[in-house]
């Protein structure tokens, strides 16, 4: 195979991996603080992309035309809105069900995901059709043989990686991060140490949901299209990535995200059957991985409580 083509697949894989890792990081953060799976994450991501899109329409109508200003503004608006929504979800649904069986929380967030998805489909103007997301980033490209490196992909990957590193620093180096980790380890003790438990949970959900909005906008900018159903698959992939990495570990989420992207790319390129089977292949490997490592590649440190 041509080396340029190989490089192309590598770049695409990294792009996908960054997006998946961003989604998976959200799952892992929520699991870390509350031991729950928030399945509506993918749909919050989709909502973030739609809010960004609406913000773009609004700002364009107001006469803003500089693409950099636009992209920054729409990201800020989308992140703020989804962060608020994330905190609201945590407050109204998830903290309420804290003592219920874990299955109930999983179900309630699954159903919430459907509710968000269906609301966008039914109530967003012409929501059932895909929307053209504006190409706001410079699309100049560098070509070497078969290898094309587009400026927008580079920017998106850079932003994604910076965000992941930034989140990692926040969790591991700041006082807020210390509080989040403390709540994750032992909520009761963390409370005794004077940590505002509810506040930390809400902030964590806000951070995770904001990250999802950025992933959604990245997705929109990369594919130039958003639709109401995009969150389902991305959420499932992010969830699978977080699980195969090992829930509760940020590195596991990043590893899982890139691993899933690698599986999809391998499925599309290197395997003998049609590339349409790439998702089938990737999910089959996920199931096989779960049989091999039932608690993920980077296993949770906590042991079973009897």
């Amino acid at each position, binding site marked *: 195979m041509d080396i340029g083509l190989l490089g192309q697949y590598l770049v695409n894989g990294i792009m996908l991996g960054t997006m998946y890792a961003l989604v998976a990081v959200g799952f892992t953060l929520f699991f870390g603080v509350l031991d729950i799976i928030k399945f509506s994450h993918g749909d919050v991501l989709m909502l973030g992309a739609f809010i960004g899109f609406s913000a773009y329409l609004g700002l364009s109508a107001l006469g803003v035309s500089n693409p950099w200003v636009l992209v920054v503004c729409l990201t800020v608006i989308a992140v703020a809105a989804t962060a608020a929504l994330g905190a609201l979800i945590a407050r109204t649904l998830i903290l309420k069900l804290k003592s219920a069986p874990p299955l109930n929380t999983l179900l*309630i967030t699954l*159903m919430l995901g459907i509710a968000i998805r269906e609301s966008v489909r039914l109530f967003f103007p012409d929501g059932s059709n895909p929307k053209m997301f504006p190409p706001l980033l410079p699309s100049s490209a560098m070509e070497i043989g078969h290898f094309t490196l587009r400026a927008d992909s580079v920017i998106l990957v850079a932003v994604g990686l910076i965000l992941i590193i930034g989140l990692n620093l926040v969790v591991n180096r700041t006082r807020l991060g210390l509080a989040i980790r403390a709540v994750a380890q032992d909520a009761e003790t963390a409370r005794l140490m004077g940590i505002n438990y509810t506040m930390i949970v809400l902030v964590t959900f806000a951070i995770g949901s904001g990250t999802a909005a950025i992933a959604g906008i990245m997705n929109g900018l990369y594919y130039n299209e958003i639709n109401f159903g995009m969150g389902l698959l991305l959420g499932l992939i992010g969830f699978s990535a977080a699980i195969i990495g090992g829930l509760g570990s940020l590195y596991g989420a990043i590893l899982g995200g890139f691993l899933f992207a690698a599986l999809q790319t391998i499925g599309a390129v290197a395997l003998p059957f049609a590339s349409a089977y790439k998702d089938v292949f990737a999910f089959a490997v996920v199931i096989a991985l779960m049989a091999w490592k039932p*608690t993920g590649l980077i296993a949770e440190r906590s042991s079973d409580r009897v």
Partner: protein
Amino acid sequence: MTMKQSTSAAPLAVGLTAVAAVAAYFWAFLSVESNVAVLGLLALAALAAIFSRKIAPSLDRAMDEHDCVMHGAILAALLVLIALFAEDHFPLLMFSTTLLYMTAALGLNIQFGYAGIVNFAGAAFFGIGSYTSAVLTAQGLVPPILILVLGGIIAAAIGFVLILPVLRTRGHYSAVVTIAFSVLFVSFLQVNDVLGGPQGLSVGAMSLLGWDFGTGPTLFGVETSFYVNYALASVALAALAFTFTRRLERSWLGLSLDAVRLDETASACCGIGIRRAKVLAFGFGNLLIGLAGALFGMMIGYIAPTSFTFSDSLLMVAIVLLGGMGSLWGTALAAAIVVLLPEKLQVLQEYRFLLFSVMVIAMLLFRPQGLLPRGVRRFVPGWRPAE
């Protein structure tokens, strides 16, 4: 003993009246056309739900002490409903769909409600049943009644591919296995040309010993809808599934399933084979779902991958949850609500996923035990001391 004997006639009367009332209600619900009438009937159901608290103890006793009579009455009521709708396609289709969804949900119930195994691929196993009947009826080598059985067996067999990860994982980790399978199944069908791709396949009709289900039987000179056949078959299948599930619950197998769900470590300490219990529940559940799917495929005659998506799996989970985990009559009631409500209120058809998601959220917040919660299990449910 004798005291009990003398007073037990009253509960039976209450029970039989309740069965008749519910049957009459479903007849009205399936035959009314206008939205106003449907809404009126829904209001009536809400009132009846409040009233039913008063008669609940007698009803429980009737089901308990005269279970043969009561089950017979319910079966008779279902047959009367079929006879009343014998000439109309649509109500019979709804009726059969409800029963088949109920059968599938009973299968899920064994997994969720008894053994505590999460399965978010219900629609996928349903789809395996339907696709089995599509492929095998097209070949025409296997008699349709065997195809039905094979649909269930193949669904269970494919389910066993997942058994290793299902057994080894717990909680959230096990959820991902079935969710991944559900997505995998639909994307596989979408791209596989042999199985019709996104367009799907047509399914041949059921036939039994020369009795062709594709044409309506002429009874007493009345030309009936061909759905009468399927409605009868669905009643038979649902009754069979219900009886089996009840027997399973009552047996020592059901007892060990309940123990495994409540505490794996404790039941392992008591010598219950956890793996065996889970394999049994997963296999038997998928078998029921596949059977229902196979008959459903034959009934609607045309299947496509979009009917078996992850959202449809969630709809099935919603049935189990709305009814109450492990509660068989609850499952029946919830299946009726989930299938019939959007079909009768055509305004709601578009909004059905939104409606059910909000309903389940409200349910989980305010009544997590379901509409007809399953009580604490007696050691042997329905056991009566010898007279």
